[in-house]
Structures are given as C-alpha cells and as structure tokens.
C-alpha cells in the first residue's frame, strides 16, 4: 500500500474525486498555480486545468459564497480556507447561507460544499495561524464538521465530505500534515512514512462521517479527543502508565454517541481533550453529553483539558499547548478521585 503524508492523502482524495466526477472543482487562495501554501493542491491545476482548479481573490466570504452558488448550479466545490484563523470573514456565508439553504428552500437548493481548512497549533504560528474554531461550527445546524488525525482518515473523510449532500467542514490539524506529533516539540519530528496510519490505499474509499474510532483500547478512563491531541493523549498514557481508552472522534457533528457511551460505561471515567480554548469549546458539549448519558457509570467528574481562555499566544506556545505533561497530570489527578 502506498505510504502517504497527510498532505499527500488530502491531495489524493481530491485527485480521486476530480477524476471520477467532473463536477468537483477546487479553489482557494494560492491553491491554483502554486498548489497551496501547504501544497495540498499541488499538481491538481496542471492535471485538471484552470477550469477546475484555480486561485481566488483574498476574500474568504467570496470563496464560500461563490461555492454556494456553484453548488446550487450542480457543481461540487471543494474549497480551501488558507488557515482556519481566516474563516471568520466567511462565517456569515457558512452560517446563514450554506447551513440553511436546504432548510429554507424546501430542499430545492442545497449546498454540497466541502471547506478544507488547517487548524491547531504547534507550529509557532501565533494567534493567527493556530486557532481551533470547531465549536463555532458544531453549534450551527446544517453543517457537518470532521477532523482527521492521520493520512488514512484524512483521505477517507475528505472523499466522504466531497460526496456528502450537505456542507462539510474538514478541519485539518496542520501539525499532523507531515507526521504524528505527541506534543514533545523538543524531540525530533517523526513522519508518516514510518507510521501504520500512513498506509493509504490507492483509489476510492471513504471513512464514514459520524463514526469515531478507538485509537487505543483501555480500561480505566476514556479520553475523548481528536486531531493532534490523539497523539498527545497517547504520549500521556504511555508516560503515566494509565490504561486509558483513547477515542478519536474524527467526526464532531454528527457525533458518534454510541462509541462514546460504550467506552465511558466501560471505564467509568472520562477526559475530554482539545486544543481549542476551554469555555464553550467542543469539550463542553462532550462533557455535557457524557454526564447526561453515562451519569450513573461515572466514578468521577468528566475532566476537560483544553486551551486556556486566552488568544493563542506566540512565545508561550508550549506553556499554552495542552501537552503530554499537563494531560498526564490531569489523568493522574482524576484517577485519584474517588
């Protein structure tokens, strides 16, 4: 099986869909001739021409807004927002338009668009290259949100997103583009070529939107997480020796409630872990649901480990980032609670 980085897997997903469906078009800032600042669309314009892969003005609202119009026409736009930190100018188009088109038009018009955007920190990118705004979208009825943590899922979810009849936001943890990252920024970077999840089948396959995966089985506590934090959780587990079950949610909306409930009922404890700021982060929804659904199985409160409620700082990145030490500390503390 070919070995791919997450960037290659993402590119391959678009390639597979563009080859199979001539209605798939790809555009965004610098994605055309240059192939994207992270190179995710590299080579696609050459292969499919400027009619189907092109650069756009620096106007995120226009990227999403024009995609909506194209989708209404019958195309399947897959667009890139260069960094999730720049998605806010498109927020109105996503929330008021893409998310509601089907509902308000009696299903005459729909918006099967895919919005890819790099999220998360760990690249010393400061407040405008590090944000994780997923919960600002999970609150919006009418959009789906997914976030892969490895090349296999990245390709499968992106193909599923492009095929989905409704708008899907694909959050791409940029710190994972080239290799898994466990939060130990001071250690050498690893890359996907040495990782089993870098095995990516050729051609078409999908990862179902709405299904979580058990990244690591365990008995004592469930860690609900996604994106980069999957590896941080793994590191913390290895370093503390706590036998945690790590659930990689992959899809935030719809959410795989069954997988969550099953695991928490087994372990009796739950940590939710994400990079985004804590207050009203997606962890709040997870904690709320877990206590709603597993209350009588819980031996201790659901613990949230998340970004501090500050803008993403630059120099203090490794104090801010919820790394394995912090996660480990919280894990130990919660295992001591009775």
């Amino acid at each position, binding site marked *: 099986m070919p070995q791919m980085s997450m960037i290659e897997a993402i590119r391959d997903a678009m390639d597979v869909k563009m080859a199979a469906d001539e209605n798939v078009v790809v555009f965004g800032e610098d994605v055309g001739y240059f192939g994207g600042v992270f190179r995710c669309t590299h080579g696609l314009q050459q292969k499919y021409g400027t009619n189907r892969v092109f650069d756009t003005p620096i106007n995120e609202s226009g990227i999403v807004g024009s995609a909506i119009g194209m989708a209404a026409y019958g195309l399947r736009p897959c667009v890139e927002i260069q960094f999730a930190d720049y998605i806010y100018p498109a927020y109105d188009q996503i929330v008021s338009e893409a998310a509601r088109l089907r509902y308000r038009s009696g299903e005459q018009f729909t918006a099967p668009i895919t919005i890819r955007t790099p999220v998360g920190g760990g690249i010393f990118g400061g407040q405008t290259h590090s944000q994780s705004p997923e919960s600002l979208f999970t609150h919006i009825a009418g959009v789906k949100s997914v976030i892969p943590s490895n090349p296999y899922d990245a390709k499968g979810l992106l193909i599923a997103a492009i095929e989905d009849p409704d708008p899907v936001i694909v959050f791409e943890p940029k710190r994972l583009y080239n290799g898994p990252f466990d939060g130990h920024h001071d250690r050498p970077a690893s890359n996907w070529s040495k990782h089993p999840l870098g095995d990516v089948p050729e051609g078409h396959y999908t990862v179902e939107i709405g299904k979580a995966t058990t990244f690591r089985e365990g008995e004592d506590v469930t860690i609900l997480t996604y994106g980069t934090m999957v590896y941080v959780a793994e590191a913390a587990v290895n370093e503390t020796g706590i036998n945690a079950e790590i659930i990689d949610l992959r899809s935030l909306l*719809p959410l795989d409630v069954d997988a969550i409930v099953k695991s928490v009922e087994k372990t009796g404890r739950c940590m939710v872990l994400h990079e985004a700021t804590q207050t009203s982060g997606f962890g709040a929804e997870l904690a709320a649901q877990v206590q709603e659904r597993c209350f009588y199985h819980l031996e201790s409160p659901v613990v949230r480990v998340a970004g501090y409620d500050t803008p993403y700082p630059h120099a203090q990145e490794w104090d801010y980032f919820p790394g394995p030490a912090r996660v480990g500390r919280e894990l130990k503390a919660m295992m001591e609670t009775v």
Partner: protein
Amino acid sequence: MSEYKPLKFNVPEPTGRPGDQPDFTYVQIPEAGSVRRPEIDVPATDIKDLATTMIRVMNTAGDAVGPWAEDIPDEALLNGLKAMLRTRAFDERMMTLQRQGKTSFYMKCTGEEAIAIGHKAALMKGDMNFPTYRQQGLLLSTDYPIVDMICQILSNEKDPLKGRQLPILYSARSHDYFTVSGNLGTQFIHAVGWAMASAIKGDTKISSAWIGDGSTAENDFHSALVNASVYKPPVIFNIVNNQWAISSFRGIAGGDKATFAERAHGYDIPSLRVDGNDFLAVFAASRWAAERARRGFGPTLIEWVTYRVAPHSTSDDPSKYRPKEESDAWPLGDPVLRLKNHLIARELWSDERHKQAESEYDEEIRVATKEAESYGVMGAGSSPKDMFEAVFEDLPPHLREQRQKMGV
C-alpha cells in the same frame, strides 16, 4: 501654512424629512431617447458615461424613442402591463391579509414593478435569478402558482417551504427563482458562483443578482464584484435604487454623490443607469446585459432608479422619517401608468381594458387567496415533524433523538 480648523463630522441628510416639502431636484432626468446604445461587446471603460446618466425610452407623450427603443412584440408589452397589474393586485390583497392577522408580515414592491417584470421578460428559461424580498414580479409575471405563493405567506399546510421560512422569502427553482435570504447582500456572490459554474460547464445560462440601494453597503457586494471582475462570468448585477433603506436614504449607503452604477467601474465591469419606472427601458437594458453575458462578454451592473412608494414592510411607517407627499412627487412617475399610456398610444390597450384587467386580477387573487386560506393561516397546518427535516439530507442521530423525544 495657516492654522488648521477643527474637523467637522459629516452625516448626510436626505432632502426632506416629515413636515418638509419633497425635493427631488437631485434627480437629473435626461430626455427619453437621448442616451446612446453601445454594442454589447463594448469594454467597460468606453461606457463610463452610461453610469451617470439615465437610459429612458418612453417620452412624456408615451412614445418609445431613441436607440434603446427596441422592437418588442406587442404580446410581450401587454404581458408586462398585465403582470404589473397582477403584482399590484397581489400586493394589495396580501396587505389586507396581514391587516386581518392572517399573516405576520408582508412587503410590497409598489412603484418598482417594472423592474423585476421587465427584466424577467428579457431572460431565458434556465437563467437563475437571485432576488431580494422585493422582486415578487419575477414570479408573478410567470405561471408560478399564485396559491403556492400565498400558502408560503400563510405558512400553512401547503406552504412549499413547509413553514420553515418567513413569509415572502419564496424559493422556486422551477421558475429560476433562488431561495431568498433574510440576510442582506449574501445572494450577490451566490449569483456570481452560479454564473461561474455555467461558464465552467460550458453552458449558456446566465444569472441575475438583485440587491437594494441600502444593501449595496453590505460586504458581499464587494465579494461579488471582485469575483466577477476576475472571472468575468455571465452575471447581471441589479441594484434597485428605490432611494430608501427602511429609514435611511441612499446617502447613508454612499449613493448621494457618486451613483451606484459607478461602483462597477473600479472593477472593470460596465454599468448602466436606467429609469426603473420605464418598462421599455428596463426591458431593453436587461436584454442588452443578458445578451452581453450570454455571448461571453461578462458581467454588467445596472442601477435601476426608482422609488419605494410602499412602506418598507408591514412593520414600517414611513411617515416617521420622510415627507408624506414624497412618493407622489417622485418625478419618474408610476410604471404602470406609463406603460398603460404607451400601449394606449400604440392602440394596443384602452382605459376599459385596463379597468377590466384590474378587476380580473383582483378576482384571480381573491379566489387564490380564498383557496390558500382554506389550507390554514398564520402557520396553522404546519407540521412540527417538518421542523426536523431538511436540516441535512438524512436525519442525523441527534436530530432523530430530539424528534423522538418530542414525539413527532
């Protein structure tokens, strides 16, 4: 160099407020027929003058004059007049419905009928309109079922939008009418995307985007024009300048000194400024722009100069912010009367037929209204089950759970 004086803050004011005499001296009206008509492949730079004048076809005698006087089939003109009468009858009846408490909300297009109706007549089947809430003429000039429109307004059991959307925010794909958004300006860029798609696919369909003078201030006006400037898709940008945006006059949108049509120039998009109360001018300018788009010469922006005779909506009382007599004083007249006079001058129409048509439409709409009311008023007949549908194509687990819990 002298001392600098304190700066002053400038807040533009309309020419009249309640109690004042209406003052329309700011509306410069060239003679009908006096504005040139360029070829459709003209570059934007060559027709900048057309953004500051006003294309007019009907003169005071009711004759069609000048280069924009097209050879329009009699039938089309008669249909145009009838559609305007029908629209006016519809608006009146819906106002009554609202006053009777059968719907919560309505918005009239009185005085602006020629624009949507004349424009629609110049488009082809398959050309998509991206309207605002004041282009009911786009539907009422077609065979779109009036009963469906009223059911939408009443949000009843036969509402095609299943009670999910506010009254008058229709959606009619079958009639090339995009779902109307309650959020201003957002549809402008959708129209661009739609036109880009047509070009990408190598089709021949065009799109037509609609916006009000006030709403040109919204940011998506810019996203639409920038993208149109880059990709030159087959789109027509319609700005309906009816002088008011709720209580704000056009100057609060920056449309006092420069015209709205001039906005296009900085984007290398040609623009026309047209008497929106002159049905013949509307048709001719629309046909010009549509032909231009369909022949691959790209976007056109048209400012339609008109006046919002009606209150903003049934929730609005314009006597609070503009001179009472302003609408009577509007110098471009009533589009219905003007086309009527033209048709009478051409001996295609008469006062009697006009009266007759008025009562025919009144009756048509009365009957349709009665039928629609039988399916429920003010939301009656809507199904709570529909509330959960169509959020996504398939009901996701969390919505299924919520619906089950509700027991529907």
